[in-house]
């Protein structure tokens, strides 16, 4: 599977946390790239390692987290080889990030205007006055009403949706090449979520930036992403373009996830469930990490970890079913999941 020119390439990234209980592999050999000008969605449930992946790219991990191995290439530059001061010139300038909860990522004692202006003063060396003028432009761009007054407002004076707009204004201030949005709308009500997603999509087109969207919401993925990587227990289990992923998902986890989603737009009888729960990161299964919950799992799955392989020119899947070594009966994962599950 060849992708067009990519803005960022992550190869075999390994991030672990070293606790008194031993090493916890939060991200374990993750590779992907974000095609220039496109949006890559990373989906997964709690503990899948999706947020740690983005923090690793930004080199924002806190102790005891460490990047153990792998390579991150951003526009041809090796990010993991950069010094901390070099990273600072990249963060918030060429790669920006939006977080889930704007109230905790905005500074409560500075005005919105100051916080946007800071980016311009640090990265572009503007004076405070010039920076504030540009900040005003950003607030207009993200659709905050009466931006002049809002420049002087503190975060607590804004509603949740407005705060997220302010966050976006800060993140986009220096016209980044890559925007990493980590659950940007999860804390918002649906009508506000719709506003923010439309805003992000529009700005992406306007500014031509590339984007990584980290989310647990498959609906958000379907509406905003071009490519999708599905993560489970620290590994990517499936990668495809968005249409392919939703139309013909191949990995049993992806299929299970899609079938367990209660939909508001169609009638469903009983929801399909994925039995059991996500394995603890300090106690991962030896073989395929999804094997204990997978209705198709065989001995091979329990013993050996499958690799992420191209199975046609559209999907990359980490599953033995699509390998020559497969030792189970022939299955069509999408059609047979429900029956296999109930056995």
């Amino acid at each position, binding site marked *: 599977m060849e992708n067009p020119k990519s803005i960022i390439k992550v190869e075999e990234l390994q991030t672990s946390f070293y606790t008194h209980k031993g090493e916890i592999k939060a991200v374990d050999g993750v590779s992907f790239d974000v095609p220039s000008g496109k949006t890559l969605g990373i989906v997964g449930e709690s503990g899948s390692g999706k947020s740690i992946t983005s923090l690793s790219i930004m080199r924002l991990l806190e102790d005891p987290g460490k990047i153990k191995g792998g390579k991150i290439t951003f526009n041809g530059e090796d990010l993991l080889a950069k010094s901390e001061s070099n990273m600072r010139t990249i963060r918030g300038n060429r790669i920006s990030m939006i977080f889930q909860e704007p109230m905790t990522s905005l500074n409560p004692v500075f005005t919105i205007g100051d916080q946007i202006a800071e980016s311009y003063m640090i990265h572009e060396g503007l004076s405070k006055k010039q920076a504030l003028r540009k900040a005003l432009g950003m607030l207009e761009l993200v659709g905050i009403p009466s931006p002049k007054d809002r420049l002087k407002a503190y975060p607590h004076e804004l509603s949740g949706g407005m705060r997220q707009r302010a966050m976006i204004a800060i993140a986009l201030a220096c016209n980044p090449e890559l925007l990493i949005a980590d659950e940007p709308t999860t804390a918002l009500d649906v009508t506000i979520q719709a506003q923010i997603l439309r805003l992000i999509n529009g700005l992406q087109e306007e500014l031509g930036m590339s984007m990584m969207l980290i989310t647990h919401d498959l609906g958000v993925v379907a509406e905003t992403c071009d490519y999708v990587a599905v993560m489970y227990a620290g590994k990517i289990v499936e990668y495809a373009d968005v249409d392919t992923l939703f139309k013909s998902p191949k990995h049993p986890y992806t299929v299970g996830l899609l079938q367990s989603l209660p939909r508001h737009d169609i009638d469903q009888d009983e929801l399909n*469930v994925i039995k059991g729960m996500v394995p603890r990161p300090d106690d991962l299964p030896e073989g395929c990490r999804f094997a204990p919950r997978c209705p198709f799992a065989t001995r091979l799955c329990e013993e050996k970890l499958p690799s992420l392989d191209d199975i046609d020119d559209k999907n990359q899947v980490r599953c033995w079913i699509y390998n020559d070594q497969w030792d189970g009966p022939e299955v069509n994962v999408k059609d047979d999941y429900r029956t296999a599950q109930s056995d």
Partner: protein
Amino acid sequence: MTTELLRVTNLKQYFPIKGGILGRKVNDVKAVDDISFYVNAGETLSIVGESGCGKSTTGRAILRLDEPTAGEVSFNGKDLLALNKSEMRKMRKDLQIIFQDPYASINPRQTVRQVLNEAMEIQNVLPKDQREDRMMELMDTVGLGAHQLDRFPHEFSGGQRQRIGIARALSVDPKLIICDESVSALDVSIQAQVLNLLKKLQRELDLTYLFIAHDLGVVRHISDRVIVMYLGKIVEVADKKSLFDNPKHPYTKTLLSAIPVPDPTKQKEQIILKGDVPSPIDPPTGCRFHTRCPFATDKCKDEVPELRTTSDGMVAGHEAACHYIEEIESGEMKAKD
């Protein structure tokens, strides 16, 4: 035959705002403002809406966890608001609640056994010597193992803790369970497990649910009837099918169109609302949605619309609080930008 289990009439819940040096009441947050509805025995009625619409407050007011400002709540023919404290406590045997975050609603220093035992003790459900068996049975019912009875809440995962919350509610054989965002904090795969469990329990134990949620996918899956609330008022009520297939209130339509669909090939028309939900301290006059409604006229600003059914296109029991249901339906009124 359907029998009515719960009826809420003209319920109001105002929370006072105190201010000034004397701490006098300066205003109210009108969290729930004059709503009426009923729940039939054995059905699931859902209340949906965004943050601050009053859906959780309604649930709490019914149980008198917060004392309602005005209105009537009648359960099985008894007026709940007329009961004194100890009578109400006895009544709660029949009315249980499951909260969003089971970790915050279960005592972290009690084992599951203590949690369940305390509930049965307070409501005097079974003689002491039979409780052990009942607890085992409950654990099995909610899909946990009997060997986990002596564990503490922190030893369980989120989905399992929610099952403990369900077991505790079931331990006193309730008739009505209020589920307040009970599956919102769970991952999709676990959420599906808990939803299926709730449905199964309802079939087997003849339970009635008042299901409070913001996720319309979940609501469509579990409900028989649905109430949509906005800023303390009911804007639409209908059976599930009518509400999702034939919504009448502009707010319901917006809400439905705003949810992302996990299907990239589905082209849909999205109605994007302007602005935020206004403050419930000083809600808009007339129809509370008029400040954001694309159809609003002067009449909407002045007159509060009542819940009503139109003669055509709305099945019995489907009501919406909008002045212009017919005009919007016929296309006579167009959305303004």
